[in-house]
Each structure stands twice: as C-alpha cells, then as structure tokens.
C-alpha cells in the first residue's frame, strides 16, 4: 500500500497549504507508524476508538451488534475503505489505515475492549493469524489444559524468555553519570632512539634546571586575594611517638648454659678498721654529722609526725549491730527434762571443733548426808555428761555414762573425741566417742528428726523411745586405791608440747598429742596422770585380771583398756601447810600455757617427725596406738617454768612448783615448799584462770571478791576488789577483750567487769536466772558470733549471745590493758618502797625518841650526883661545925680529919 499512502501523502501534502495546522497534524500521523501493542506482546493488536457514528455505519454498535458473548465483529475491508473514502481523515480507522490496506484478508476483526485493556474501547487485530487465534482461542487453552493434565503438576514448564525490545526506564542516565569517561583526550608520546644506542652504557649527570634555558616551566604560587577561603577546622591525626632508633646486631649463639654467681661482700679487715677509726677525717665527719643526726633522732622522740590523728581518734566504724546494746541476749537454754532427781550443773565445756555443740556435766543436788541417805536410789540412776546441740533443745545428742557424778571434765585438745572427767569419788573417767563422732558432726542435717520432735507432745516422749540419744559407757576409770580419795575438783590436759616424768622434770613430747593429765582433789593432793600404758607395771594388772575378770561390753572402744581400773598417777603432790595444821585443799589449778617459743624453734622438727610417724602407722588415730613414751630417751626441756597457781578452799592462792626434790634427810621424793601463799579471798577459790591475752596475768575469784595477779610479782595482787554484796560463784575471762571478765553470783546475776571502764565495781550487772550460777564459759564461733554458756544450780544451761560491744575489742585495748597492769605493778613496787621508806622512817623516829629519853636520864643522874655531893659536903661541914660547937673535936683535929 505504499504507493497509495504516498499518494495520500501527496494529496495530503497538496492539501497542506490550504488547510490549517490541524490538518498538518494528519500527514504526521500518516507518516507515523500506527501504535500497536507490541510492547504488551501482541503486535497484531491496534487499539482504536470507534465513535457511535462509526459504530452505526459499520454495524458494530455496542450492546447491539457487540455483546459480551460476542465482543468482536468482522468488518469487511471494503466497508472500511469506503468509510475512508466517505469520511476521509475523520474516519476512526484512519490511524490504522496502513494496516488495513496491507491486510491480506477480506474481513478484519475488531474487538470491543470493554475493560480498556489496551487503552481504547476497541481494538483491531491486524493480522490473519491474530484473527484466527482470536477466533479460535478455545483450542489453545484447551490444548494447554490437556497438556497440563498429562504432565505432573510439580514439573515446571520452562518458558524460555521472549526477547523484547528494551524499554528505557531511566537507568541509562544513572549509568552515564556514574561511569568515568575521559574528559580530555590522552596525550601520547612517542620517543624514539637510534638503534645503535640500545644497550649502551648509560652515563647520568646532574644538571641544575635553572641553568639551562627553558628547561622547565614554572608555575609559581601567588597569594590570590579573591580566593579567601578560610579553613576553620582541620582534622589532623597526630601520634606522639618516641624517638626510635633501630639497630641490629648479630650474636653468636652456641648453646644455652646455666650461669651461677656467688659473691660475698667486701669487708675491711680489723686493722683497716682500726686505721679508719683513728683517722682524723672520720672524727671530723662524725662531729659534723652527729649534730644533724641527733636533731633528727630527737624529732622522732618528741613527736611522731606521721600519725593520722583523725584515724587514731575514730573508733572502728565497722560495728555489727547496735552500739548501745550492751546486754547479753538470751539465745537458747537447755534442760534435761527426763531426770527424776534435781540436778545441778557442775561443769560446762564447748566442743572445740563442732559448732553449736556443748557438753554439760550434771550432778545430784544433795549434800553429803543426803547422798548417804539416798545412796541406794542414786546408784540406779546413771550420772551423765550430756551433749546439747543448738538444733535440738529438748533431746541431748549424746549421753556419756559415768560411775558417779562428774564434777569436772575436759575435752582432749588434740582429739576432741577423748574426754576425761573427774568424779565425786576421786576416780578419773575416760570416754572415747570416736565411734559416734559422725553422729554429732552431722547434727545440723537432721531436719527430719526435728519434725518428729515438734509433732509429738512432750509427755509421749520417753528417753527409751528416742533411739537417737545413746548412752555411751566410759572406757576407763582410774584405780580407786591409788588415785584420789575425795572429789576431784579440777582436771586439765597437759599441752602437747611437753611431758613430765615421775620426778616432775619436764621433757619434750614426741607424740605430738596430749597424753598427760593433771588433777587436783579435795584430799589435798595434785596428781599427774599419763594415759599411755606403763610397761614396767604390766605384771601387776595381769595378776589382777586373773582374779577378777570383768566383762567389758563389746561396744566400748578399747582405747584405754590398759588403764581401766589399774590406772595409777604418775606423781602425787601433796600441798601441805606444815606438820601441824591441815593441808591445803586445792580447788582449781592453772598451769602456764607452755613455752610457745620452744615449740616454734626446736620442737617443730620433732613434732613433724612424730606426726609423720603417726601418719605412717596406718593413719590411725594416735590415741589408738599409744606407746610407752617413757622408754624412749626424751630430751629434757630446760628453763621450763614448772610453777603453777593453785586456788584453795580456804581462799588462799598458792604459787608452787611441781618439781619434786629429794629430801636430804630421808632420801624420799617430796614436793617443794610453795613459793608464795596469799590469802585474799574470804571463801573457796573457784576460778583460777590465766588471761588469754597475757601469759602471766591470772584471775582468781573466790568468796566475795576478785583478785588479779601477775606471775612474778610476789608482793600481792595487782587488783583486789572490795567485797561484793553477793557471793561470787563462777567466773571467766572474756575470750576476745583483754580487760573484760564475767562473774556469776549466787543470786543468778552476771557481773561484767570492764577494766577500761571501772576497776572498783562491775560495769554491767544482768539477771540470768533465779538461782546460783555454777559455771560460766564463753566461746567464740566467729568474729560476729560469740556465745556465753551460763549454768545454774537448778540444772539449766543458758546460752546467751554476747553483744558486739563486749566481744569486739577497741583498737588499742591490748596495749591499754597491758599498760594498766604495768602501772599496777609499778604501784605495788612503789607501795613496797614506801613501806620500806616508812619502816626506815619509823626506825629513825624510834631512834630519836630513844635518844631523847637517854639524854634526859643522863642529865638527871648528873644533877643528882652533884646535888648529893653538895649535900654531903654541906653535911660534913655541918657535922664539923656541930662537933666543934660541942667541943668534942678540936679544931685542928677536925681540920686534919677533914683534910684527910
């Protein structure tokens, strides 16, 4: 149809000058390609707008010829061409005229585009194939559906991408912007050289650029006034680097070997020192420097310039609890509710290792007469030591049986499972609770037992039904004949640093354990006992055993079997006052704690040896493997203080020696005389105790007053209190504060003395119970928890908590109390001196009096004589005169007589 279109163009062109601009648009549209929907993948579709007029002409009216079922119409080509001729450019088909003219077929398909899918309300299908496709579309989808049915659904039908012409969406502009293009053309140089010069040796030379003309072009910098951009901020990174100098060296490494240097200091020989000493320069130097040195020394003497006064002024601020709270707080109390008779507590001891375990010895509250009267009844009831635990206030954990009432007992310091107690009948009783140790150690975990206790009411509980509390029989008692005859008032374990022999001489202890005891009793003797088997005395016990074979229950450990009933004391010391009066009856003793220095220096190696020996011996408890230590040659300890303090029933405090000496007359061993004896107390001394802070300060309490002594000061007590209103019955030093001690009274009050506060009376008095307090024992569990056990006459044990103020020492307390004691010692010395001075003065005064008396006497004597002489002379004269007067004597004769 080209020629026709060209014709149309020409006609259109001819018409152009005549017609206006509107017509001018037409030839443009003719020349333009008809817009098709190629971009949408349908190049045969040409959208059209068909006006109603056109629709009427061509019989394609909407809703009449074209319906939804048949949205297309086939229009004959001739009709459209006729329309062209009739209406010319106004025809709606004009834009697609070219397509229509080129159309091969006769009928064109025009489809009503109801949804304006292609932009206009109709569209023309420009190709035969398109017409065919449109008219016969159901085949294709049917085919497609069939195809789909045949193949499985998950197979993806690969549709290769249909290439479409690229449509610009503006991305090429971005690419253009980002791409780097050369703005200017590159300059290329070509340098050529003569071939012969290739490879020739090069000779460089220096040349100054400015010497040769035009050798360089300079672009000098100049300040441009128009360009005034001031840089206000500059971001620069700086690093400070020390000057570094790198050097390297190469060393020769052969092989590593150890290098040892031994040196000794240079010293001057004696002669050189002498020469130095005599040199003048040294003396000048010393003269000059000694001035400044002495000034410096004096400065230090005058004042310590480095003291922080504020620090020293302030008390410790880390107080736990209320500072104003100074009372003992009740924590718990234990009473044995299952006993029938009334009992009193005689001795209390905390378990050294287990927390919350306390052992109490109880005795029947009867006087001697009553005991004798009720002796039958008493035999039936066992005497016990009860073990109480904080976790169970009703049931004692363990009950140790003894043949008679125990008045004092102690845990062995080396092994807390060994307990030694002193009976009322003079026997020593030993227990070994190693087998039950695990029971008492795990008391805390016995939670289920607690529940049992609280559920059942009290009257249902019987001691027998409670299987937990067991009676533990003692494993050894001392011999009745050879031991004490009366009640044992005090028992102590000797420390494990030393041991003594029969003479009282001190030897080192190779066992590393406590194996000796000391007891004192009301029969005025102090005995030393050894728990190891005595080899020399094996014969006697065998004989004894043959006679009376006592069955020992199988559950009793055989630790001390060798001692049972045959135990004799090592030595006996009798405290005698002299031959005439009664002996001293000791109530309490206090030994020196042992030389710790010795232990540290010499005994350490031996102790380690002993311990290792014990460990090697099958890791057994050393107490189960006691050997006779006497056979070994032990090293004696020299300079050991064998003196100790004894408190007596009469109220005296004796300082005596336990070493025996040989009596020169009889050759027997006898005790030394006591070094000193003081009678300060009005009643029996029940507490003789060394201070835990000072080795030589001893507290004695008895009767109605308290006394503090210093070992070595023989003149008297450092402090002696005045008589208290009530009798003191128990007492103990505080374990943490050096100036505090507790005293129990007979009316149930506890007096707390604080030497820093008041020394003439107790600083605090607190009521604990209604009856006499029989024993006081404090114990420290931790820095914040300190308890005091107070036992009373009615058998109740009260546990109280000591408040912070009483348990925590102030910063300088030890030194302050020490200073106080030193002052007291000085005071005593002063008193002694004053005494001496006074005596002297007294003597002098007496002498003077004497002298005076003598003088007057002499004077009167002379006078008398003189007077007598005068009298005599006058008498003679008188006689002479009388005789002369009488005429009996002649004058001459009398004169001569007188002259004669």
């Amino acid at each position, binding site marked *: 149809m080209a020629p026709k279109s060209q014709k149309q163009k020409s006609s259109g062109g001819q018409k152009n000058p005549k017609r206006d601009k509107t017509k001018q648009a037409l030839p443009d549209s003719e020349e333009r390609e008809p817009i098709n929907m190629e971009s949408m993948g349908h190049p045969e579709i040409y959208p059209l707008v068909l006006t109603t007029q056109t629709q009427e002409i061509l019989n394609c009216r909407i809703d009449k010829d074209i319906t939804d079922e048949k949205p297309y119409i086939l229009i004959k080509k001739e009709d459209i061409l006729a329309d062209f001729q009739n209406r010319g450019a106004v025809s709606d088909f004009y834009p697609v005229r070219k397509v229509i003219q080129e159309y091969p077929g006769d009928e064109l398909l025009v489809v009503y585009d109801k949804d304006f899918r292609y932009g206009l309300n109709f569209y023309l299908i420009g190709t035969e194939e398109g017409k065919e496709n449109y008219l016969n579309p159901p085949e294709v989808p049917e085919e497609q559906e069939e195809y789909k049915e045949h193949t499985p659904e998950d197979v993806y039908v690969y549709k290769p991408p249909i290439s479409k012409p690229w449509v610009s969406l503006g991305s090429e502009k971005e690419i253009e912007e980002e791409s780097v293009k050369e703005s200017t053309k590159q300059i290329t140089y070509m340098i050529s050289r003569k071939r012969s010069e290739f490879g020739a040796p090069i000779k460089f030379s220096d040349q100054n650029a400015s010497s040769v003309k035009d050798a360089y072009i300079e672009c000098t910098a100049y300040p441009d006034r128009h360009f005034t951009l001031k840089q206000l901020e500059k971001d620069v990174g700086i690093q400070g680097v020390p000057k570094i100098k790198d050097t390297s060296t190469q060393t020769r490494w052969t092989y590593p070997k150890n290098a040892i240097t031994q040196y000794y200091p*240079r010293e001057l020989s004696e002669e050189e020192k002498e020469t130095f000493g005599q040199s003048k320069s040294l*003396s000048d130097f010393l003269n000059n*420097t000694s001035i400044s*040195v002495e000034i*410096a*020394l004096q400065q230090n003497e005058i004042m310590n310039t480095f003291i922080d006064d504020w620090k020293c002024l302030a008390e410790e601020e880390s107080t736990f609890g209320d500072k104003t709270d100074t009372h003992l707080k009740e924590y718990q109390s234990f009473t044995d509710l299952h006993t029938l008779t009334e009992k009193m507590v005689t001795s209390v001891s905390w378990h050294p290792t287990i927390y919350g375990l306390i052992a109490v010895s109880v005795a029947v509250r009867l006087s001697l007469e009553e005991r004798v009267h009720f002796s039958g009844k008493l035999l039936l009831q066992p005497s016990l030591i009860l073990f109480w635990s904080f976790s169970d206030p009703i049931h004692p954990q363990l009950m140790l049986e003894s043949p008679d009432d125990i008045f004092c007992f102690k845990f062995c310091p080396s092994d807390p499972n060994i307990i030694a107690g002193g009976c009322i009948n003079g026997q020593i009783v030993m227990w070994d609770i190693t087998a039950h140790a695990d029971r008492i150690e795990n008391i805390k975990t016995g939670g289920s037992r607690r529940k049992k206790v609280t559920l059942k009411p009290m009257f249902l509980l019987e001691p027998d039904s409670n299987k937990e509390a067991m009676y533990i029989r003692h494993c050894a008692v001392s011999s009745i004949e050879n031991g004490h005859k009366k009640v044992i008032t005090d028992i102590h374990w000797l420390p494990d640093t030393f041991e003594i022999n029969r003479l009282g001489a001190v030897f080192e202890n190779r066992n590393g354990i406590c194996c000796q005891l000391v007891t004192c009793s009301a029969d005025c003797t102090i005995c030393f006992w050894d728990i190891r088997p005595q080899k020399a005395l094996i014969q006697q016990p065998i004989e004894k055993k043959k006679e009376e074979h006592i069955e020992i229950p199988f559950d009793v450990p055989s630790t001390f079997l060798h001692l049972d009933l045959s135990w004799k004391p090592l030595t006996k010391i009798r405290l005698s006052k002299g031959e005439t009066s009664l002996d001293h009856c000791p109530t309490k003793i206090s030994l020196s704690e042992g030389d710790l220095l010795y232990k540290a220096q010499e005994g350490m190696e031996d102790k380690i040896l002993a311990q290792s020996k014990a460990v090697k011996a099958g890791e057994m408890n050393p107490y189960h493997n006691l050997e006779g230590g006497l056979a070994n040659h032990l090293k004696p300890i020299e300079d050991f203080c064998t003196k100790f303090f004894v408190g007596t029933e009469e109220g005296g405090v004796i300082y005596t020696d336990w070493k025996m000496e040989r009596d020169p007359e009889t050759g027997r061993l006898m005790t030394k005389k006591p070094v000193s004896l003081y009678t300060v107390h009005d009643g029996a001394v029940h507490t003789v105790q060394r201070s835990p802070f000072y080795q030589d300060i001893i507290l004695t309490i008895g009767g109605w007053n308290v006394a503090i002594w210093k070992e070595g000061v023989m003149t008297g007590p450092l402090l002696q209190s005045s008589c208290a209103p009530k009798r003191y019955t128990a007492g103990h030093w505080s374990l943490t504060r050096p100036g505090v001690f507790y005293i129990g009274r007979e009316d149930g009050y506890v007096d707390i003395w604080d030497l820093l506060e008041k020394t003439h009376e107790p600083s605090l008095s607190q009521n604990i119970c209604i009856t006499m307090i029989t024993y006081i024992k404090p114990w420290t569990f931790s820095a914040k928890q300190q308890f005091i056990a107070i036992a009373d006459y009615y058998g109740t044990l009260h546990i109280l908590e000591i408040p912070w103020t009483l348990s925590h020492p102030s910063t300088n307390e030890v030194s302050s109390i020490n200073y106080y004691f030193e002052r007291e010692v000085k005071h005593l010395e002063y008193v002694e001196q004053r005494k001496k001075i006074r005596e002297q003065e007294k003597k002098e005064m007496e002498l003077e009096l004497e002298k005076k008396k003598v003088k007057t006497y002499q004077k009167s004597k002379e006078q008398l004589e003189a007077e007598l002489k005068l009298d005599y002379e006058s008498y003679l004269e008188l006689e002479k005169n009388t005789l002369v007067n009488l005429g009996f004597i002649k004058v001459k004769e009398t004169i001569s007589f007188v002259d004669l």
Partner: protein
Amino acid sequence: MTEWTNEPGLCPLRSSGPRPAGLGAQAEVEETLKRIQSHKGVIGTMVVNAEGIPIRTTLDNSTTVQYAGLLHQLTVKARSTVRDIDPQNDLTFLRIRSKKHEIMVAPDKEYLLIVIQNPCE
C-alpha cells in the same frame, strides 16, 4: 649541716665532758657513736665508707653488710637526683620512714653515717 642549726626550739644534746687527750680521735669517734646509740629507740648505728664497706657498726655482720650495700646505692642515687635537678645543690640528709623504723643517712664526701631508729610508739 649549717641549715639545721636554724631550726627553733631544738638544740642538740652534747655532753661536753672531759675527754682523754691521749687517745684523741679514736676516743671521740667511739664516744660520738655511743652517744648516738644511747638515744631512745635507736636500734643500730653504723659508719660506712665511700665504697659501701662498713667501718663501724653496732649490729651483726650480715645485717650491717646488707644495710651498707643497699643504703650506699640509694644515697648515691639520691645525691645524683638532687644534683641533676640543680647542680648547685647537694644532698645533706636522707631519712627513710617505714612502718617499723626510720633509717637516717647522713652522707659525706668520704663516709656515710647510718642510724636506724624505732620512733616513739
């Protein structure tokens, strides 16, 4: 040394008793050392020569040797420090205060006098 005499209220104790003329320098030396040693709290006194070798001492040998060696080095260091800062200056006295004692070193061209004191408390 002259600086010290300007301190108010402190006058050095010097017993100006008669000295035996025959013995001369040695007796003076002994007397001075004794006087220093008898001050309250003085633990030890020693005289050390310029190389750090002790000449006179009141302590045992090993302690003396240790003190002498260490304090000699310290004195040299202290002196060099003072002179580095100001070459016109020189070290007159060195006192080292520790928790337990105070060590005083009086240096000289040829000798060092070291005194160890336990101050008041």
